[in-house]
């Protein structure tokens, strides 16, 4: 399969938009688009990076998120979907994308004002500690990701 030609703007825009529409995650970066969507034959050239960056900058529901850490590529410039993660339930199988809904290490606030730091997000098993005066106080709290409590939690950014 030949290397994707990013100078073909129309094709590039089409690929990038369809990728972003299908993507459940809240953040994205240029490399990930190159590798996961555009066929990825070798490292992207700077012209490829510029071309993808241009397309991303034009997306109305994506904003610049600055440099974010990334486990595969190292820290690099990233973008955030303004409306947060989407499709956190897989249509086909009905399974929850629990790590998309809740990030480990992030803090979430319940309607009653309590703040929880998520310690574990796996399968249907969500755990956290209540944050009191900056301390992780008290016992480990179990939250079912499909529960009302879970649905009412809002991330504190």
């Amino acid at each position, binding site marked *: 399969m030949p290397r994707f030609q990013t100078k073909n703007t129309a094709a590039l825009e089409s690929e990038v938009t369809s990728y972003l529409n299908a993507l459940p995650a809240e953040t994205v970066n240029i490399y990930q688009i190159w*590798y*996961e969507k555009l066929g990825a034959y070798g490292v992207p050239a700077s012209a490829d990076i510029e071309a993808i960056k241009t397309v991303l900058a034009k997306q109305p529901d994506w904003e610049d998120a600055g440099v974010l850490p990334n486990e*595969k590529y190292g820290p690099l410039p990233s973008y955030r979907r303004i409306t947060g993660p989407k499709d956190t339930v897989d249509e086909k199988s009905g399974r929850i*994308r629990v790590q998309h809904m809740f990030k480990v290490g992030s803090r979430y606030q319940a309607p009653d004002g309590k703040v929880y730091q998520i*310690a574990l997000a796996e399968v249907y098993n969500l755990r956290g500690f209540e944050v009191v005066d900056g301390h992780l106080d008290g016992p480990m709290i179990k939250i079912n990701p499909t529960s009302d409590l879970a649905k009412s939690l809002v991330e504190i950014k």
Partner: protein
Amino acid sequence: MAEKVTHSICVGGPIAIHTENGTIRRVRPIVFDDSVAKGWVIKARGKEFTPDRKTSPAFIAFTEKNRAYSYDRIRYPMIREDFVETPDGKNRNTENRGKSGYRRASWDEALDLVAREVKRLQAAYGKETITACTGSHHSWGLLGYKLSAFARFFRMMGYTAIMDNPDSWEGFTWGAPHTYGYYWRLGGTEAFDLLEDGLQNVETMVMWSHDPDTTRGGYAGNESCLWRQWLDKLGVQFIYIDPFNNFSSIKQADKWFGPRPGTDAALCEAIAYVWITEGLYDKDYIAKHAHRFDEWADYIIGNGTDRIAKTPKWGEIETGIPAADIKAFARRWGTTKTMGGSGLRGGFGGVCRTANGTEFARLMVQLFAMQGMGKPGSNIWSGSTGAPMDYNFWFGGYSDPLSQIANAPIADKTAVNPVKQFLYRPNVPDAILDGHYEWYGNGFCGGGIDLEFVEHIYPEVGCNKVHMFWRYGGTFMGTMLDTNKWVRMYKSPELEFVVNQDIHFHGEARFADVILPACTNLERYDIGEYCNSGNGGYQSHSQTGCSWQVVVFQDKAIEPLWESQSDYWIFANVAERLGFGAEYTEGRTELEWCKRFWEKSDLRDRVSWEDFTKKGYYIPPCPEDHERHYGFRWFAEGYPCDTPNHKNFQEEGKLGTFTGKFEFVSESLLYWAPDDEVRTPIATYKPSWEGHHSIKARKYPFHLISPHPRFDYHTQHNSSTPWIWEIPENRKYINGNPYLIARVHPTKAAEKGIKEGDMIELFNERGSVVCVAHITYRVEPNTIHAYGSSGIYNPTIPGETSTDIGGCVNVLSPGRLIGDKVPGMAPNSTLMDVRKYEGELPDSQLFEDKLDKVAFDGESDTASCKEIIEGHGFEKLQSLVRAKYQEGARG
């Protein structure tokens, strides 16, 4: 006769301890009473399978009583006889380390000295001048584990941390993520619920560099022994690949292949050749899930840049396995439901600790991918993990940051190390001796592929060199590389002050200036779960290697013997002298810390602290309708990952590679290390840099393989327990010293005039080790097999890099790491030669006199080391302890 029963866990598994009159009487497996719920039942092929109602620890667990009272216990704090506390740190007779004797010291004298030296060195050079490291698993329990008590102390004090290399996983950690991700599992895959899958579906098990009845699921004891018996009885075919026809293989293999060490990657390529040319692989799966497969396939069939077809005949020339056999193997694998893998948990194995280790790991994963990995009966699963468990019961494992006293929430305040300088464990001696060292990678790198490529230099910019070494638990003489350099390091005046903290007088203790006696975990409080490794960048959920989830209150069976103390006590008392005692302990006793782990986990919801500590253990039931989350099934069938310990991109159906697919041309390597000669973008077999194609082979024609040991664990058990020195496959006790068994093929033995039971010397340019020969057909002819991890280190000239009679064959291994950008160890790429040993034999273990002297100093009527080993010293010891207990009980 006052008897009590307490419980504990050790690296061999959970045990019940019977104590009478203040002495430990016996150590047994934990046998369950009626209060423990029914175990899981797996229905497969018309039968039902359920485990025995007990824990099945390894035999080493049953030596714990003996280890507590053993002849080589460090009983009192000790100071090197010719150590001088000079004000400038020089002229301290460091060249005598290893040969000097010791004198007894009080705790105050020893700890005051340690504190003074810490203050002096910090003032002179900065906090970074102190470094410290531990053995892999000194003692079980969440409080006492190195990432807990040790880490809290050293991070608070500030020190140059030593990064561990992923010693058991090298080729998988540095290689496999570039093929399929799983860097958060050190390159190993997920085995969730695969025991059930295997029992229901598998037809062929490929046990590649795997000896489950020896490596025992890591810390899972003998739990999976029964599982493999079940598979065997169901008619599953076992194919073992190992230069040594190992202890599982010899009883269970339907076929044993003994490739020449270092050629396993070639065998992978030859198998791929058969599959590609005969169409014996899952083409739909590859079309859907593989990236740039065709370019690799071209390379295999001879259209690559080297124009060499990796035919079975080509494979025969490299590996020594007949071409016809390779074809038959490939066809069996390609036409039956096959599971298997390397080492316990599928991503281990001695084969990955070689010069070509990364390439083998990647190729092995590629082979499983070609057969539709994740479909029923088709997966990487090596038969020692994946039991049903209740994933919704959470209790911390030792690598969980959530379960370490170094961090909140267990502590109120997380300990943070202010020092930004590091060392890298396999080459600490090089750094100290040369005063300079560079390397890539953050050691375990579970946090990301990017961490493999972080650049490090020692000394770090703006930092001073290290001048103090605090060594804790275990001995590297038998586990690290080219280990004579540790001797040279210890003797160097660069190290102005050396502390050793250990339970037994192991190989490195005798190089210390100050020795601090720690106690076993039978003498202190702790809490832990059987084989639970936690989620902190090891391989989570390793407790699926056990038939039961067992959380144990590791109660104190007896008070610390002689003057030993818990590691926590030692750290707390040094911290006190250094001004951060209150910060370190946060005012808690050890028992109170244990309660924190109960409080901050699911244990609190299941059982009260009082009931838990009274009963001594808790076993969460596995519900009959427990949720199944089969490892890798989500990927094969295309739904969001539902197994525990996953990454968010897996919820999008992607693997942890750049493309999210199996990469047969690695994009991550093209990105990060395109010029890496050792780990190339297409994984290929390359002759080992210390193998049969190298120049060195003309002079040193034998491969040495030194796998993870059968009769020991992390160097801690063989040394203390004479009972096992007479096991013929382990050691032979001659003239007061237990000599390690080394295995030689009959043809080569005949050439060298070596007979069964002869003393032989294994040697190369790095050193020599005297062993006892076992002549056997169970080794590939060009291979000498001698287990690594020897806890017994006995150099014939103490303090010098002389011949070792303790069996530390790692003395012969290369210090060279796999590659410039692949900082892994490769001890199984060692070339050496062997000859009959006709020299003199010493009449003891060469250090017993040092221990005897200090023991008699403390208790003149105590037994000598030799008496405890051979005579009635053990009973003498026990009666002295019992008398003291009864005295104490009386008031």
